């Protein structure tokens, strides 16, 4: 079951760079064509930065790995042009249920309000996402994706990096001003730089299986503590497209990985869980996991993103989601730096903002793991007491932790200009803007986030005076009409309110009445020019 079926095969093509007498120089080389590398490369190319994307393989294999994509990730994928196909193929869900034995402890709804283009979550096999991204990458003339190009050496220079790359035609060198290392949890680039990857190792083993069947279960996330079919452990059931169901069973620290994968062991376990044996096994694996990170994500001209920079447990869907959010945070900053429109110091805020996000993700995933896989008799007592109290006391229900699902980070960052008055509504400084249904100047429906795209934008609510000047200004009531009042409510908008939005759709500054000088200063600040500098 561990031999991965090839689902999509791509061809190696010789590049003209391989025939040059001296290394070709590129502004950005991204290493690793997984979801994170692909998103980074597409985003950079969409921003007009030519990118070479290298991958050591030439195929996308079976084994669904990441399956849950969160709302914020879908909003990013929408900007990159692939959310449509992902939504069409994916299973949309927002309800989760938590059981102890046969009893439902509680249910949760992840998107309790209307007026968002994207759902709370979709489930989609990672290979479908990767395939959609590869197709999108092929549409972009500035993106050069090279399969079977394996980085085997890295030399740092003051103003860039030289990579040595092995191909079926032999090896060649490339120079890059910047390298984005998105080469996964076992990153070779991390190894070339000799960087520590430190954190906590968890001992519990889990069986992960994708099962094909016609099920009567709804598209909800079901999690069991101590289920009747798997006594004393935990279990997860979650729907994917193509009638495939993800099953995750806790096996404990002493489980024998090999024995547990034997069909005579797996099939009865699953039969007991599902109540029938009308299923086929698509893929399975036994895993343990680690929560760890690089101390810094930016090392001179080499910048780490996704699993290469940080690793989490699977509880909470924080791996692929946070990696794609890394890519989005990095792309606009790197694009500005490459074009000479921002100082290189702007990239330090990638490290700062995404390090904080990684810590948040590692914290959540560690705490979920503590609850799901207690390590001692006393930890198990605490866990079981919470589960027992959850039936009677709301505080205990709130502590039941079957994975806290991925949410975007709110950045506390020098790029933000602090609020000088208080604001209500769900928009908050440093966070991605909440979406809202609007109409454009022609009266056609458009979502707020669609209208923003990836451009630095000022949103202005008119108050009789002339609109402010900026890179791009959207005036409410003229360029965007807030017919249903969602914008007004979510942004606490009053006449004169003005919002400065970063190219990654996070809120950088807002004013009740903005002076030109304030907007200019906040804009410079958002681009990483320190106040008073340059």
């Amino acid at each position, binding site marked *: 079951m561990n031999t991965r079926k090839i689902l999509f095969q791509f061809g190696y093509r010789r590049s003209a760079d391989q025939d040059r007498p001296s290394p070709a120089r590129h502004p950005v080389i991204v290493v690793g064509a997984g979801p994170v590398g692909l998103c980074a490369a597409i985003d950079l190319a969409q921003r007009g930065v030519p990118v070479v994307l290298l991958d050591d393989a030439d195929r996308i294999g079976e084994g669904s790995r990441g399956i849950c994509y969160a709302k914020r990730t879908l909003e990013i994928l929408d900007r990159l042009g692939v959310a449509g196909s992902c939504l069409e193929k994916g299973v949309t869900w927002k309800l989760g249920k938590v059981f*102890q034995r046969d009893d439902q402890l509680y249910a949760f709804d992840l998107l309790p309000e209307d007026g968002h283009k994207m759902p709370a979550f979709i489930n989609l096999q990672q290979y479908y996402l990767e395939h959609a991204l590869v197709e999108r990458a092929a549409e972009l003339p500035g993106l050069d994706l090279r399969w079977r190009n394996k980085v085997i050496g890295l030399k740092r220079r003051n103003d860039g990096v030289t990579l040595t790359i092995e191909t079926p035609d032999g090896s060649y060198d490339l120079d890059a001003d910047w390298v984005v290392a998105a080469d996964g949890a076992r990153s070779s680039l991390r190894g070339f730089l000799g960087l520590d990857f430190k954190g906590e190792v968890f001992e519990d083993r889990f069986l992960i299986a994708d099962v094909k069947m016609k099920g009567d279960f709804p598209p909800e996330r079901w999690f069991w503590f101590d289920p009747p079919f798997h006594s004393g452990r935990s279990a997860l059931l979650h729907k994917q497209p193509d009638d495939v169901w993800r099953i995750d069973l806790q096996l404990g620290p002493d489980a024998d990985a090999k024995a547990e994968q034997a069909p005579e062991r797996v099939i009865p376990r699953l039969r007991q869980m599902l109540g029938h044996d009308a299923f086929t096994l698509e893929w399975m694996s036994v895993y343990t996991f680690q929560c760890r990170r690089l101390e810094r994500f930016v090392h001179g001209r080499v910048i780490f993103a996704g699993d290469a920079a940080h690793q989490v447990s699977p509880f909470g869907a924080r791996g692929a989601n946070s990696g794609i959010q890394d890519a989005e945070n990095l792309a606009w900053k790197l694009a500005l730096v490459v074009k000479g429109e921002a100082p290189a110091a702007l990239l330090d805020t990638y490290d700062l903002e995404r390090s904080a996000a990684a810590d948040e993700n590692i914290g959540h995933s*560690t705490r979920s793991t503590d609850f799901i896989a207690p390590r001692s008799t*006393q930890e198990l007592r605490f866990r079981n007491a919470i589960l*027992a*109290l959850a039936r009677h006391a709301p505080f205990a229900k709130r502590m039941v*932790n079957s994975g806290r699902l991925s949410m975007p980070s709110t950045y506390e960052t020098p790029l933000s200009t602090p609020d000088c008055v208080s604001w209500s509504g769900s928009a908050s400084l440093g966070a991605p803007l909440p979406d809202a249904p609007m109409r454009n100047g022609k009266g056609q429906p458009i979502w707020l986030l669609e209208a923003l795209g990836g451009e630095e934008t000022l949103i202005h609510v008119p108050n009789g005076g002339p609109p402010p000047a900026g890179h791009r200004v959207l005036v409410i009531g003229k360029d965007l009409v807030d017919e249903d009042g969602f914008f007004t409510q979510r942004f606490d908008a009053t006449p004169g309110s003005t919002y400065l939005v970063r190219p990654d759709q996070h809120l950088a500054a807002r004013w009740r009445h903005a002076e030109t000088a304030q907007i200019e200063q906040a804009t410079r600040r958002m681009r990483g020019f320190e106040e008073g500098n340059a």
Partner: protein
Amino acid sequence: MMALVTESRFPDPDRAYRALIEAHRGLSDEESAALNTSLVLILANHIGDPAVLQQALALAKQSLVQTNSTSG
């Protein structure tokens, strides 16, 4: 008279839970029991209200039935 509050009160309950777990890491089971006992006494005194203490005891006993059957 104050009533026992059973609504969630910590701004981040997951961190509070983690703090309890961490306090026990590396302790023997006996040491854990001793730590918990001290903790109960400290918190009971902090509450300082016998009626609330009685309600808390009643809730804990109610859930004990559940816990026992779970651990079995």
